[in-house]
């Protein structure tokens, strides 16, 4: 489950912000802000992607770096947000 989500998040970041450049060794824990991967509008694109792909709503107070500033943080956040019963459908 976690692996699937990590793959999706990484794929989205590489396609959408790095335009296919996977060669720069982006680590799961790298800060997307520190690395300059997302700019001021990037976070909104990321939020839209999460809401469209995972079907939950990102609340205002959840828009914090602890939830969204690395592949690992985003993944952890998604896992916390998803209702337990949806895990099976994601696997399929």
């Amino acid at each position: 489950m976690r692996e699937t989500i990590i793959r999706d998040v990484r794929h989205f970041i590489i396609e959408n912000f790095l335009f296919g450049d996977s060669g720069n060794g982006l680590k799961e824990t790298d800060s997307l802000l520190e690395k300059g991967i997302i700019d001021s509008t990037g976070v909104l694109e990321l939020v839209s992607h999460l809401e469209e792909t995972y079907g939950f709503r990102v609340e205002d107070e959840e828009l914090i770096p602890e939830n969204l500033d690395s592949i690992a943080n985003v993944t952890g956040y998604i896992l916390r947000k998803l209702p337990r019963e949806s895990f099976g459908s994601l696997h399929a």
Partner: protein
Amino acid sequence: MCGVAGIIEFNTPEPKEGLLRKMLGLIRHRGPDAFGIFTDSHAGLAHARLSIIDLSGGDQPIHNEDETVWIVYNGEVFNYPELRQDLEERGHRFATRTDTEVLVHLYEDHGTAFVNKLNGQFAFALWDRRRKRLMLARDRLGIRPLFYHLSGRRLLFGSEIKALFADARVPRRFDPLTLSDIFTCWAPLGVSTAFEGVRQLEPGHFAVFSQDGWKSQPYWQLSFSNEGNEDRPLDDYAEELDVILTDATRIRLRADVPVGAYLSGGLDSTVITSLVKSSFNNQLRTFSVSFTDGRFDEAPFQEKAVRALETDHRSIRCTERDIGEDFPKVVWHSEVPLLRTAPVPLCRLSHLVRCNDFKVVLTGEGSDEIFAGYDIFKEDKVRRFWARQPDSQWRPRLFQRLYPDIFAHGDRRSRAFLEGFFRKGLADVASPVYSHFIRWENTAHLRSFLSPQILEAAGAHEPFVDRYCAGLPADFMTWDPLSRAQFTEISIFLSNYLLSSQGDRVAMAHAVEGRFPFLDHRVVEFASKLPHRYRMHGLKDKFILRKVASRFIPGELSQRPKQPYRAPISRCFLEGEACAVTRDLLSEEAVRRAGCFDPSKVGRFLSKCFKQGGNVLSERENMALAGMVSTQLLHRLFISHFSSQDCQEPEKVLLYGR
């Protein structure tokens, strides 16, 4: 105002007239009124004239009494009547009423040191036949351009790079390091240009080229070393500024043709317009550009200014389609990759000026640099304030006040993230480039679009920040942080972007001369000695200027917060007819052929843009789009499809020398 070009050759004498005619043909837009060429065995000087002073007698090249000193000159020396009077008292005889001739006689008396006496905006080439040496010089702030190509004992120079390309021996190749720099700090650094082997004389420098080779040196340098103290009352400083600025404006009205003004609705152009209107010319004609896209439009403020100042006003309204259509033309004139479209509306504005039979306009350019008007100066201050208490919840909230637009983007939810953006390198307050580092790093992300070959070639040099810092004045770190930030803004951005791509080149595209009272060196030196608190007070930008302005312009204009001059980007390239051009320029094949970018990344990027309906929100991605389109255009215009045969040589040329 004019265009200059020339050849100096100390190897083997070569026929020069044919090449000089071609060079003139490529820059004839700068000076369509008359053409002249001087040649002797070593030198060839060419001139395209825009007649502004001494309309009937000012054709160039111009010489001294015994024809041993010849000059071609682009620009204006505003203090020429005073200089001339002094020369006449010393026995010099004048053949014309021009400012140009003053330079020739000054050179006779003072040698190259005469350049210090000039107050103006100029680039010139002066050939001393007796000493067989050429002197090239450029004004203090780099208002007028001067490019050159040096190859052993042969020198080619010109007001624009395209003039040099008239000679097939000049290589037409991109300079990888400069491409990398532009995709970092928006402009070429120092002497470099987008093209390998083509350099520019730096602002405030002069050079001598003789049989002994090339030597350039500064005659003026911006310095904040002598900041005044605050014991002197603010009112005193304000009084002094009022006097200098009024005089700077007064001498910039010297011309034998009518002088108009740009009126953007902002503080700076309103101040200048108001000075002209109240003291010197009650019938002033003003010009402005407005946008159909409300995010960029300042029309309501322009209308207020026009009503308050009662000028005879003309304006044009710019659509995204206009910008897309004119972009290739502007790249042809700018000769550099552009990360912005803002030069395009200014090019249309100069066209409007020309259509109204004006050749000269005063503008407010330079005020934001010298009196600290840009947001980046406030950003630096807020970050330093925050860095002292990095855990403060309240201090970073100031960014919201600084950038309400960004924080209001779509929704206000991303505040914590945006604050994270400004937190980058927060503790690094001892860096000489603390003020600009975030911006450069954010822009440098665009370098990832560059091709491996370009990145590899650029990577062989020192990193950008190290190269920039190596040239800083020795006492730089003793200056106030605001002064440091202003110095960096001025030395990187003013001449190589603002005064060129948004200044000289887009005005001269229609043979219009801009004049900038704020860039009179007396005003610049005044500002650099002003206590920094009077430049920016708390977070009030241009504090002293607002104080002076409140004496004579309405409060809603003198206290209006700065609106950065910007133009829309993505939709200009992705909608309407421009869209096909963009697709063509950024096609896999075209990108591969030019070799500047990674074709697969460009393809993915373009798909993303179209997926967003052409409405790109990210600032960085807008810059990426403009940067890639302009670089591809530049390649097409100057490398793959350039032919000096296409230029229209001047029909009638006056020949001198021999």
